[in-house]
């Protein structure tokens, strides 16, 4: 059943499925997107739950015979929900619950201790550099390279031009590579 949910192409419409199948197929992806955009695991889980509440309402309000392209819709709704949550970021600052990267908590990958140490240091640099990007640059980078949407699809989902996507993408890559290259 899950195989029916997954799309052969990112924009291919899929047949109507149950809500549980949608949840199973897309929850981890939505959670990862929210976690990257919010930099906070608790907020990401809350926003992901809000997104799937909207999915539930949309799924039951939608005509069952209508073919629905869920994945772009989910990404769009998730990005908007993360924006809404960031607008109320003063509350998170007030509570003092901003999540930060902790190197020691990443699992080992079977390398030597020295390689592991260097790998963790590099990962820490990447995470911190990613959090330094502007919100728009984060959105564009995650959708383009982590979720592997095309430039045109990213522009369509974020409601900006393709040229703007390319500019944000270049600035994000330039910043991340500069931070990554400091230890080379």
């Amino acid at each position, binding site marked *: 059943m899950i195989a029916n949910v997954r799309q052969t192409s990112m924009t291919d419409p899929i047949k109507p499925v149950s809500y549980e199948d949608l949840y199973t197929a897309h929850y981890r992806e939505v959670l990862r997107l929210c976690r990257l955009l919010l930099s906070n695991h608790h907020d990401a889980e809350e926003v992901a739950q809000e997104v799937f509440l909207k999915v539930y309402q949309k799924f039951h309000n939608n005509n069952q015979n209508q073919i629905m392209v869920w994945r772009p819709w989910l990404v769009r709704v998730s990005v908007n929900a993360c924006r809404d949550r960031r607008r109320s970021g003063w509350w998170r600052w*007030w509570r*003092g619950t901003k999540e930060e990267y902790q190197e020691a*908590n990443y699992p080992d990958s079977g390398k030597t201790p020295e390689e592991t140490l260097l790998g963790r240091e590099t990962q820490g640099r990447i995470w911190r550099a990613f959090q330094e990007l502007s919100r728009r640059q984060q959105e564009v980078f995650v959708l383009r390279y982590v979720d592997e949407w095309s430039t045109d699809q990213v522009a369509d989902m974020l409601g900006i031009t393709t040229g703007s996507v390319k500019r944000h993408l270049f600035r994000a*890559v330039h910043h991340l590579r500069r931070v*990554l290259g400091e230890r080379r």
Partner: protein
Amino acid sequence: MNPCLKDQKLLLLHDGEGTSAERSHLAECEACAKRYRQLRSDLEAITRTLREEPPPRTVSHPFRPFTARWLPTAVAVALALILMWQGARIWSPSAPAPLSDEIWIVLEEFSPDFFLQNQASAEGLWTVVADAYDRALALEADRPCEWYDMPARGEVESVDAGFGDFGVPVSACVELNRS
């Protein structure tokens, strides 16, 4: 002019864009090809790191000092109190300031002469007004009531000019005629 590709062009080529001339240059130029490989390697490392889902233990709640958390509130409360105090000072009725000893000494020396002069001036003025009124009554008594509305002699004009409101009442005229 350096024909090598800029970073932006390399990124476009990585994304499947770019012109055929740029692609051919990338195939021929070893320096650009090296930079391109480095770009691909960096992007792979970045995306791999971001795709890795950290375990739940990575969630941290860094401690923020008590003062840092409550400093904005304390500043806001202090400002509110200052504003309230200033507002109360401005809008409350101010009590008269007590007179100093120097002012009392000056008043004690100055006030008797000052008030005596004023009293003398007031008495002089009253005497002048009373005399003018008596003269007007005497003049009105010499003429009959039917002349009441007519000006009495030439000097009446000056009396009217000075005491226009001091007209003799009709009842007083009748009493004079009877007598």
